């Protein structure tokens, strides 16, 4: 199982029937592939759809039905469409139960930076700031490290996405929560020890008495 699949499978286990869920681009998008069949959630696409379905079969795509990246999608029975003001009203208004977003850095207090690298990458924040500010639960799905450097940092050095802290970060090697506002190691990936995770994590982690392995 590759790193992205581990992350996608573990995040999918956070979803519950009836949840309204918004998935960001990249690894978060993969979560939809791993939702257990007995869990029925609504996926929102912030360009104006609740009830996004899989990519349509060849020849069945509709040019006016895409995801937020402009790629063709389908709509499931029971789907609804709306304008961007409504879409972000849902997001900011606390109607989205879970958002899953990518990350550049998450720090020891649960702050997230995921929208720009000054001087290098200035694409615009799109919907990320609204999602972090307004969703009931914010989960970050990302690789634990980039080019050998921990993305779980003591303090974010990149511009923050929101002053609101996140609830959970799922990486290829760990699940980290923030009870009492402190990064706490909740689970390790199968086959990894707590010490191995700590060794590649810049931020100081609170280690509970028992740290189970991820169930994926």
């Amino acid at each position, binding site marked *: 199982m590759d790193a992205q699949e581990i992350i996608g499978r573990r995040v999918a286990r956070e979803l519950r029937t009836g949840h309204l869920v918004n998935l960001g681009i990249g690894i978060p998008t993969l979560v939809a592939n791993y939702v257990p069949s007995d869990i029925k959630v609504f996926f929102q*696409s*912030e*360009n*104006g*759809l609740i009830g996004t379905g899989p990519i349509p079969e060849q020849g069945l795509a*509709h*040019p*006016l*039905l*895409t995801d*937020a*990246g*402009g790629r063709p999608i389908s*709509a499931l029975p029971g789907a609804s*469409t*709306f*304008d*961007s*003001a409504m879409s*972000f*009203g849902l*997001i*900011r208004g606390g109607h989205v139960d879970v958002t899953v977003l990518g990350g550049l850095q998450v720090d020891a207090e649960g702050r997230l930076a995921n929208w720009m690298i000054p001087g290098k*990458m*200035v*694409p*615009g*924040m*799109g*919907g*990320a*700031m*609204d999602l972090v*500010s*307004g969703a009931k639960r914010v989960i970050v799905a990302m690789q634990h490290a980039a080019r050998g450097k921990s993305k779980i940092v003591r303090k974010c050095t990149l*511009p*923050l*996405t*929101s*002053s*609101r802290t996140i609830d959970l970060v799922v990486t290829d090697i760990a699940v980290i929560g923030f009870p009492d506002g402190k990064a706490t190691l909740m689970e390790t990936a199968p086959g990894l020890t707590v010490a191995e995770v700590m060794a590649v994590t810049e931020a100081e982690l609170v280690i509970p008495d028992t740290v189970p392995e991820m169930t994926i």
Partner: protein
Amino acid sequence: MKAISVEEAVAKIPAGASIMVGGFMGVGTPERLLDEVVRQHKTGLALISNDAAIPGKGIGKLFDAGLVSSLTASHIGLNPKAQQQMLANQIAVDLIPQGTLVERIRAGGCGLGGVLTPTGVGTTVAEGKRQIEIDGKAFLLETALRAQFALVHAFLADYLGNLSYALTARNFNPVIAMAADTVIVTAEHIVPVGVIAPDHVVTPAPLVDYLIANE
């Protein structure tokens, strides 16, 4: 509402005009109007749009043709030409959170001075803005946005100018149709009055100034 040709409609737009354009990554964008803006070479445009689409599609065509002087948007990351023009200081780009952008436009169309949003508090977005506390929660004061023109793409337009939209092509279109002095519309289909049931009209006819006639 008046049905006119795309040439006549775009001739009404002066160089340097402020223009809101509907669409999300080029989906729900009035392509025929943008093609004509390029053909008539309207320069120095101040654009307000969700994103910069991609080169060759939607609003991306205006960057290809070098017609843009400023852009207010939430995301330009998928249009390398818009990024290059921004980094070379050829265009001024104001990047703002998507929910804030659409609410500022909505406010502009609804006679509000602005909105209070928690989005951006404690980030670089808050710089230079008034922060207001209400019931112990911090909000940013985000002011209303309007433009001289809104270029809207609908799915159905009836002979009076009532509009409905399809699937994810709705996005910013009904919101910008409220927030500009002159509203110009293209539609996938022009239909008789009554085909769009009153309950299904999203943009009421009095908001529409010009509908681009079929060829």
